């Protein structure tokens, strides 16, 4: 490591300049915008007020949308934990060629556009889709599932699962299989080994995966837009409507900033919790 006063700033100047112009400055603008007011006759009214924030806090519609978004994101996170963690474990116990083969299959949807995947789910869950054809063929009633929160959760789990499998997989790689064997030879049942030996060691991976899944789900746009439709309004689709249909930019800006704030807060709290946990573990 070289301690030099000027060179590193010079080296990172192009990137910093661009990020200053296109991240920090626009955020400042959006922050200011959220304290303005929109009028359907005159557009954005000059002068700064707290009107938009008051409007959001006093209207139960917005609470409902935020509540729905939180609920959908939490369900998605929980399902990703319940499916992703065991799947990563099963993968890690496979033999050499199959292991990377199946890992790639589980992770590959990451590389396919989320619009394509959302469209795929609308084909599976639609009124004449795969699911309903299957239900009919075994003599059951059709279900109306597309354009419901359930459909959004299903599609979100599909999109988010790789983000859960990756960190759990990474922490499983660091695990020493001899410890499991030791526990087994000392008379622990398979379940005990999983619960008392494996799980505690992959908890950090599990938590960071859950954090990513929750944050990405809460701000997901294409999935609720295509699988939830107009009926299942979520925060992201609400912001989109305010900006591009209602043209009420101050309101959209305020909702976007609230979303950002909640996301950052959840990350911060989780991080602090994890640090606290480790401090205890290390015995300090």
């Amino acid at each position, binding site marked *: *490591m070289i301690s030099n006063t000027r060179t590193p700033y010079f080296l990172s100047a192009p990137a910093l300049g661009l990020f200053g112009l296109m991240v920090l400055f626009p955020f400042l603008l959006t922050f200011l915008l959220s304290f303005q007011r929109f009028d359907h006759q005159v557009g954005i009214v000059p002068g700064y007020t707290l009107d938009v924030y008051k409007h959001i806090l006093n209207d139960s519609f917005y609470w409902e949308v935020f509540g729905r978004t939180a609920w959908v994101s939490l369900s998605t996170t929980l399902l990703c934990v319940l499916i992703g963690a065991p799947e990563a474990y099963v993968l890690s116990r496979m033999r050499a060629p199959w292991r990377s083969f199946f890992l790639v299959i589980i992770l590959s949807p990451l590389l396919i556009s989320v619009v*394509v995947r959302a469209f795929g789910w609308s084909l599976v869950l639609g009124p004449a889709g795969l699911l309903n054809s299957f239900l009919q063929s075994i003599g059951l009633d059709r279900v109306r599932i597309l354009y419901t929160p359930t459909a959004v959760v299903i599609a979100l789990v599909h999109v988010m699962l790789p983000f859960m499998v990756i960190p759990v997989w990474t922490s499983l790689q660091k695990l020493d299989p001899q410890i499991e064997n030791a526990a087994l030879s000392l008379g622990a049942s398979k379940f005990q080994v999983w619960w008392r030996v494996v799980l505690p060691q992959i908890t950090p991976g599990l938590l960071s995966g859950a954090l990513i899944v929750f944050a990405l789900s809460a701000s997901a746009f294409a999935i609720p837009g295509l699988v939830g439709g107009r009926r299942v309004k979520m925060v992201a689709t609400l912001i989109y409507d305010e900006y591009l249909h209602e043209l009420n930019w101050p309101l959209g800006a305020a909702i976007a900033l609230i979303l950002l704030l909640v996301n950052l807060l959840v990350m911060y709290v989780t991080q602090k919790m994890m640090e606290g946990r480790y401090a205890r573990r290390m015995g300090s």
Partner: protein
Amino acid sequence: MKNGPLAILFHTMVLAFMLAPLVVICLVAFTPTNTLQIPWGTYSLRWFSAVFEHSDLLQSFWNSLVLAGLAATISVVMTVPAAIAITRYNFAGKQLVQGLLMSPLIVPHLVLGVAMLRLFTLIGAKGSAEWLTLAHVIIVTPYALRLMITALVGAEQNVEQAAASLGANRWVVFRRITLPLMLPGIAGGWILAFINSFDEVTMSIFITSPQTITLPVRMYMLATESIDPMMAAVSALIIALTAVTMFALDRLYGLDKVLVGQK
């Protein structure tokens, strides 16, 4: 250690869940009818030819391709010196610099989109392809930066010091030692940046114009407006294209390494 039958059953169900929507798309794409249905017995390529006759769709495909190529290249050129600064120097505010450059991973793309829209209207850049490219540079930079930092941290720093002590100046050290050591990170970073730009929809939907519209945005619009099997054909083509890319990536790097990231 081996997986029991229960574990294999679970694994099969997860695989089926992950592949179901993709398989259904590829089947529906071959329907001869006008509705989004899985064809039984009769197949047709009519919706694929419809894709190639849809000039808007082709235009947005080229838009996306050029945009992703430019954004990935600019991002890599800009990130190489930044990655060197972060891994080879101690300086005040290093954490902040790294935090800012990685921030597009934490800030929702939707929020970036509305912020960019505000900036673009203010400076009169709405609909500009150049500014759209810069916006994409922002969102792909974290991916490029992360791979380059990994490559630089993993590389032997002694070699650089040896070269310097033998009289090589800083440019020669960079050109002959550091850059070759970074090359895997640069290539991997470029590819990840390209893919992420090519697939980006949430931010782009706010800042594209009819002239600069990208493929995912066009497809999002198509999917909300119509129930035409052509959408299935485009999607199937994208899946095929991704599969080919993945195969190439796997041959070059090992796909599990690219997706999981080096530790």
